[in-house]
């Protein structure tokens, strides 16, 4: 079987990672192991949800992103900004001010990622009416799409064919700029991302590589820069940019219930990836009574909980709601939809087929998998069931799986080591070597500079 090359945005900085178990324990797809004192991400299983990045106590997990300098490769430099970006700033700072400062950073244009929400909403509703598989699952959150590919392949046909608004908005704006006479090669569209999953989606997995968005910039990097600029500004701003009209629906689209509140039929919203996994499990068993639409988000509070946001997610939600309420009065159906639709092509609005990429099976071959499972069940008779993670795998079950896949040994278990020492099958020396193999050399030596110790930071 050909190996699928899947791009992942999450990386472990080998110099900073000191090999604790936080990321391994929180990973919803059990995609992290510890080896030689460092966290390793299993590419086949990772869905780029960013849970590991959020929980890392030393910021050793980072996202691979484009350098801000890359925007200067283009004459026309567009920042494609999602609504949660402005939600991080206090409401006293206006959107116009924020976007004006964006231009100071070097962007020539700023455009909203949610501009196409009304059209996407209509297309989704059309699909809800047509789709055989119920419920229709939104493509909005790329970590969820990957999760279904990896862990719930039976639900692949439930995924909507409509692209998320950011893709349609980017395609639309690029075409508008081309219409103004700017050559396409000179237009660089840079998405300011609230999460790792969006980076992975744009840099591509499978055939769905994004050809419209030219780069992705980490939101926390940009908001830090902007906040600093705004705080230190002396003179008042000149030419405030005029922004296209965004509906209150569009402003709240990326928050939990942002989509589900506007879909026809019976809709439900579930956020936070562990909640989503539990829910999808029940959906697979057909335990969930008939639903028409399902909004699923990997982060708590939707994009306001994105790993690359600076602000507190609850305050971000509140601020976006305040901004949306200000728009409520003039919130009417966008009459220009047909005009937009004429500008866009199908490929700007619809995704190509999504393939299942199941990563939870023990072997491609059923009989081999059956044998491995029998061995796992046998190994589980011996492992203590404490799920401490001291072996470098997230729990006893996954250690047993790693053993049958020849990626670990029974003696990686510290409790098994004890039993082996007691039965004189293992020397203390050897046991220490095994521990050092997992947790790094001299890991058990006294070290007063480590986190929480008396000389930390000195």
């Amino acid at each position: 079987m050909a190996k699928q090359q899947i791009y992942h945005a999450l990386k472990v900085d080998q110099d900073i990672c000191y090999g604790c178990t936080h990321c391994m324990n929180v990973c919803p797809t059990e995609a992290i192991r510890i080896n030689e004192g460092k966290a390793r991400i299993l590419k086949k299983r990772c869905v780029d949800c960013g849970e590991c990045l959020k929980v890392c106590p030393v910021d050793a997990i980072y996202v691979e992103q484009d350098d801000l300098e890359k925007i200067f490769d283009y004459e026309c430099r567009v920042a494609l900004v999602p609504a949660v970006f402005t939600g991080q700033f206090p409401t006293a700072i206006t959107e116009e001010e924020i976007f004006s400062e964006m231009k100071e950073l070097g962007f020539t244009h700023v455009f909203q990622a949610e501009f196409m929400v009304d059209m996407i909403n209509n297309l989704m509703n059309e699909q809800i009416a047509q789709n055989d598989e119920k419920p229709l699952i939104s493509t909005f959150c790329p970590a969820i799409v990957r999760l279904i590919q990896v862990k719930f392949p039976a639900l692949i046909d439930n995924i909507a064919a409509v692209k998320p608004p950011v893709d349609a908005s980017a395609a639309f704006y690029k075409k508008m700029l081309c219409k103004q006479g700017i050559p396409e090669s000179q237009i660089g569209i840079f998405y300011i991302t609230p999460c790792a999953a969006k980076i992975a989606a744009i840099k591509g997995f499978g055939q769905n590589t994004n050809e419209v968005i030219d780069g992705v910039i980490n939101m926390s990097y940009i908001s830090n820069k902007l906040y600093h600029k705004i705080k230190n500004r002396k003179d008042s701003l000149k030419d405030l940019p005029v922004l296209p009209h965004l509906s209150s629906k569009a402003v709240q689209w990326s928050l939990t219930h942002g989509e589900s509140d506007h879909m026809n039929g019976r809709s439900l919203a579930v956020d936070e990836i562990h909640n989503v996994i539990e829910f999808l499990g029940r959906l697979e068993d057909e335990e969930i009574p008939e639903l028409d639409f399902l909004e699923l988000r990997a982060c708590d509070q939707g994009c306001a909980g994105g790993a690359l946001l600076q602000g507190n997610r609850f305050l971000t939600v509140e601020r976006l709601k305040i901004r949306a309420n200000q728009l409520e009065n003039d919130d009417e159906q966008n009459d220009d939809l047909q005009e937009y639709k004429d500008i866009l092509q199908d490929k700007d609005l619809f995704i190509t087929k999504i393939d299942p990429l199941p990563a939870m099976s023990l072997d491609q071959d059923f009989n081999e998998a059956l044998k491995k499972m029998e061995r796992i069940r046998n190994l589980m008779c011996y492992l203590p069931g404490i799920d401490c993670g001291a072996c470098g795998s997230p729990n006893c079950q996954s250690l047993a799986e790693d053993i049958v896949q020849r990626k670990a040994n029974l003696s990686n278990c510290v409790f098994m080591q004890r039993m082996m020492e007691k039965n004189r099958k293992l020397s203390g020396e050897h046991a220490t070597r095994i521990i050092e193999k997992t947790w790094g050399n001299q890991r058990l030596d006294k070290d007063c500079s480590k986190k929480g110790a008396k000389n930390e930071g000195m």
Partner: protein
Amino acid sequence: MEFVYEVEGGDFTKAGNASSAVKKTLKQLNVSPKIVKRIVVALYEAEVNIVAHAYKGTISVNINQDQIHIVLDDVGPGIPDIDLAMQEGYSTASSKVREMGFGAGMGLPNIKKNVDDLKVSSEVDKGTKVEMKTYL
């Protein structure tokens, strides 16, 4: 390879636990998603039947190269007329059970649809035995 699960009558919060465990196993065995879905839907129905109607029961799942063989054996009121129970829409569920969203009379017919071979035997006031086979 055999897996055995205990099911307690009347405990709807735990209904589905055995089905979920079996599903995880089948996924690990790389059984095709379509087959997994059918087996799990059938098993979930049957598991809920024990919870809804019986006092207690056991589920044993046997997996080998050719087939997945599941036997649900319960201690309970039994089914007086199996042919009637196999009809769509026929239900003996109490209103309490229906309020919880169960008891639409689709249980056994839905199981039959999702497995290759279904055998139901029952003795009134003793219990019911449901055997289902799916060939791989």
